[in-house]
């Protein structure tokens, strides 16, 4: 089959963002995923987030590995350059792209197989280097595109569609990301737009490695009633940690919070994150600025079969790989060769040193 272009019917009355663009202009081609696939909902949330942030789409680069999830970038942001690389290697390709041009927004999309199996090393090292990107895992606990084998994020309790028990413990990517130094770590659910969209917006605005583990049920292979990655299970066991408001750059903070119960983190793009403490319970008492608490909260929820979602951790110090290695602020791909090449004169001195 060939690429399916979506008819773009411009309706004059469609709402527009600050750039004067409609949501449609942030869409991609028609999805070829299964009807009802969680990944499509995440796609919709990414479209919504970018639309609401009024980012010029062509200043976004979207990258992925291989898998149903990794196909998703075809379905959003048709005006962006995309790169569907090889299985598990999106982090390295994104690293190179970012090194070449730090002025673009990088959104990486991956699957749990793509990230937690074949790509675990690249994922871990991209985190460690604090690559400035938004890394979204569409986590369905299985390998969708190869027909449903368990992935490394599938819970030990959770059986396959045929009823075979998974004998291995899951890898918790959020916990790992925090441990490895990610600056921004959140978990959400494809079925919870309200939580997901502000998380994506905040992740995009964050400078450094922003990681989102989004549970995204595979309706074809891993949405049966016993699966802990099914819509029903996730809905029933979702523990929201650190509820959050995202406030765009120019906007006023209108809501009114009780003193001491909220904290503002200003993002690199000027947006602001409002963190609320609701109380002292496991849900509201969470302070996402404390990595130890975040790890503890993830672990204690997991022990109870609950899933901690929301903004789990944010490091207010926003630094990235360019800061670490000390590159110029210019996009390297825009520096002309004539300027990069030291020329014959410098070479005379160099030749002299080799004499």
């Amino acid at each position: 089959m060939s690429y399916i272009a979506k008819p773009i019917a411009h309706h004059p009355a469609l709402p527009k963002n600050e750039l004067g663009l409609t949501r449609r202009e942030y869409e991609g081609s028609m999805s070829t995923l299964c009807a009802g696939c969680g990944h499509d909902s995440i796609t919709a949330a990414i479209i919504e987030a970018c639309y609401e942030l009024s980012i010029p789409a062509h200043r976004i680069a979207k990258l992925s590995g291989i898998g149903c999830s990794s196909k998703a970038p075809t379905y959003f942001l048709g005006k962006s350059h995309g790169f569907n690389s090889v299985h598990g290697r999106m982090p390295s390709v994104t690293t190179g792209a970012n090194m070449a041009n730090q002025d673009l927004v990088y959104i990486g999309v991956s699957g749990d197989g793509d990230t937690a199996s074949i790509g675990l090393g690249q994922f871990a090292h991209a985190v460690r280097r604090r690559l400035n990107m938004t890394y979204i895992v569409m986590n369905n606990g299985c390998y969708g595109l190869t027909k449903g084998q368990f992935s490394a994020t599938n819970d030990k309790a959770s059986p396959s569609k045929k009823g075979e028990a998974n004998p291995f413990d899951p890898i918790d990517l959020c916990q790992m990301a925090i441990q490895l130094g990610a600056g921004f770590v959140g978990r959400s659910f494809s079925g919870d737009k309200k939580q997901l969209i502000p998380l994506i917006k905040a992740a995009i605005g964050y400078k450094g490695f922003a990681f989102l583990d989004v549970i995204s049920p595979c309706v074809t292979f891993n949405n049966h009633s016993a699966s802990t990655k099914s819509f029903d299970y996730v809905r029933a066991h979702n523990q929201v940690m650190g509820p959050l408001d995202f406030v765009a750059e120019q906007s006023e903070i209108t809501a009114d919070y009780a003193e001491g119960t909220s904290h503002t983190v200003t993002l690199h793009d000027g947006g602001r994150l409002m963190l609320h403490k609701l109380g002292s319970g496991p849900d509201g008492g969470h302070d996402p600025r404390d990595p130890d608490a975040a790890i503890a909260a993830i672990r204690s929820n997991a022990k109870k079969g609950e899933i901690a979602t929301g903004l789990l951790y944010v490091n207010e110090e926003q630094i990235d790989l360019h800061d670490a290695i000390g590159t110029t602020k210019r996009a390297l791909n825009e520096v002309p060769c004539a300027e990069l090449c030291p020329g014959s004169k410098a070479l005379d001195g160099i030749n002299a040193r080799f004499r």
Partner: protein
Amino acid sequence: MSGINDFVVKFATVNGSGSASANTMFAKTLFRMGLTVSPKNIFPSNIQGLPTWYEVRVSDKGYNARRAGIDLLVAMNPQTYLDDLAEVVPGGWLVYDSSMPRVWPRADVTVLPIPIAQMCARKWADPRQRQLFKNMVYVGALAALLEMDMEVIKRVVSDQLKGKEKLVAANLEAIDLGRNYATEHFVCPLPIKVRHHDGAKGKIIVNGNEAAGLGAVYAGATVCAWYPITPSTSMVEGFEAHAKRLRVDKDGKKNFAIVQAEDELAAIGVAIGGGWNGARSFTATSGPGVSLMSEFLGLAYFAEIPVVLYDIQRGGPSTGMPTRTQQSDLLSAAYASHGDTKHVLLLPSDPTECFSMSREAFDLAERLQTPVIMMSDLDIGMNDWVTDAFAWDDAYVHDRGKVLDAAALDAFKDVKGKEWGRYLDVDGDAIPYRTLPGTHPSKGSFFTRGTSHDEYARYTENGDIHARVIDRIRAKFDTAATLVPKPEIDIRDKAGKVGIIYFGSTRPAVMEGQDELNAAGYKLNSMRLRAFPFGQEVRDFCAAHQTLLVIEQNRDAQMRSLLMTEADVPGTKLIATLNYDGSPLTAEWVRTAVLKHITPAKQAAAE
């Protein structure tokens, strides 16, 4: 054969003992006296305590191949005494540390004992100094024995130790110690000795990895990702060192990004990401890394992304001989990746070409939108070569290939008469136009992928389209054959029917071997390959000769295979002429190997 300005000295030491810098000073002094030196470092795959050798051939004829037959051996490592002694030619000399005296079981070698350790122990109290200066003592002794110019040595020492002035004096003292001892105890100079000469005038002495690193700086490379592996590590270090001097803004910010990746898969991934995004990007590795990079190389080939890979070859297969040289990655590089994949290879033969071909590699990668692999090796990369000085033409404009900016995108249809398609061959050279992310708000975006796609970069599962696209990519290889560096052809006999084909680091040995053969009445033509795919010149040369000796440093005659399959040269006339023991070739080896093949032919002709 040996004599003034023409001999081989070998140092047998232990690694980690500080001998490397002393040995380098020795070689550099001779070079500054105008002689061609060809030092070869023979080191183990460990860090400290194992035997290491440094072999320096001196030539006033400009030959810089290895030469067998050691005239003078400096034996500092008791572990290898016996083997070392065996290497000295009859009539040669052996210098050793006689603090622990021993009897040397060869009457035809003159032993020159120097109680080096004792001398150092008497002179220095600090154990580290005692150890380090031993090396300078034997350099001093050689200065006397070979009549090296002391003024030159002094300058070499102070240049080498710039910034550490205190050390200079101590080193010179150690040299004097050795020199005085030799003058007092031996008849100096020996018949093998040096005199000022001008054979190396205008040349430089440098290793290929540093040259390649500098070449990448001049080529405008900005993104480098790598993972350490011998013998490629110093290529990236060379890039970094030169970029730090030449590419840093006043505020200390770098106009280059180097990422030490977590492995080779990531390294090539970063380089590909950079190439995709319009930066000149590269990585460097050796055999095992090439194997690990092969999936990614196939992606770059099929998605048509420029990237440069330096393969500094070492001894295979597998981890093999990581500190020895070979040319055995040709097939794995040329065909890296599954499916129908072919890559452009460049074949530098010395550090000067490592520098100049770097520019060509980046230009070709962008022009052809494909990976270009520089096939260097340990001998070129890690040994110092006396080679032509680096040159740069300031009028040269880097060829960035077919990249459309916003204006060009807007004008595309008007200018070219067709809508733009990322994979559309508009010019008939099989090379399409590419766009970079972020260029234009509404035009030129596309989805790069390793799955099949049509001329407009749209996903397809249509087999006819797939075949059409890969046919075009194959045709691009024909374009490549016209653009890559041409072979170096040396016709010594216009009617000659026997030719030598070779490439890379064997050049000095082959050229010297040809001279020797010439002197013996055998005028042989030769062609040095400088790239793959093969251009018309390569085919013509092959067609013009009946017998072609293909000299290469691998077991499986890999270049011969490429000539058969990719230049249609009949295998019957390609004689595999192989060496794969990990050592740089000698002219003697070349001469013998060639004679073995041509002598029967000559005889047959005479009959």
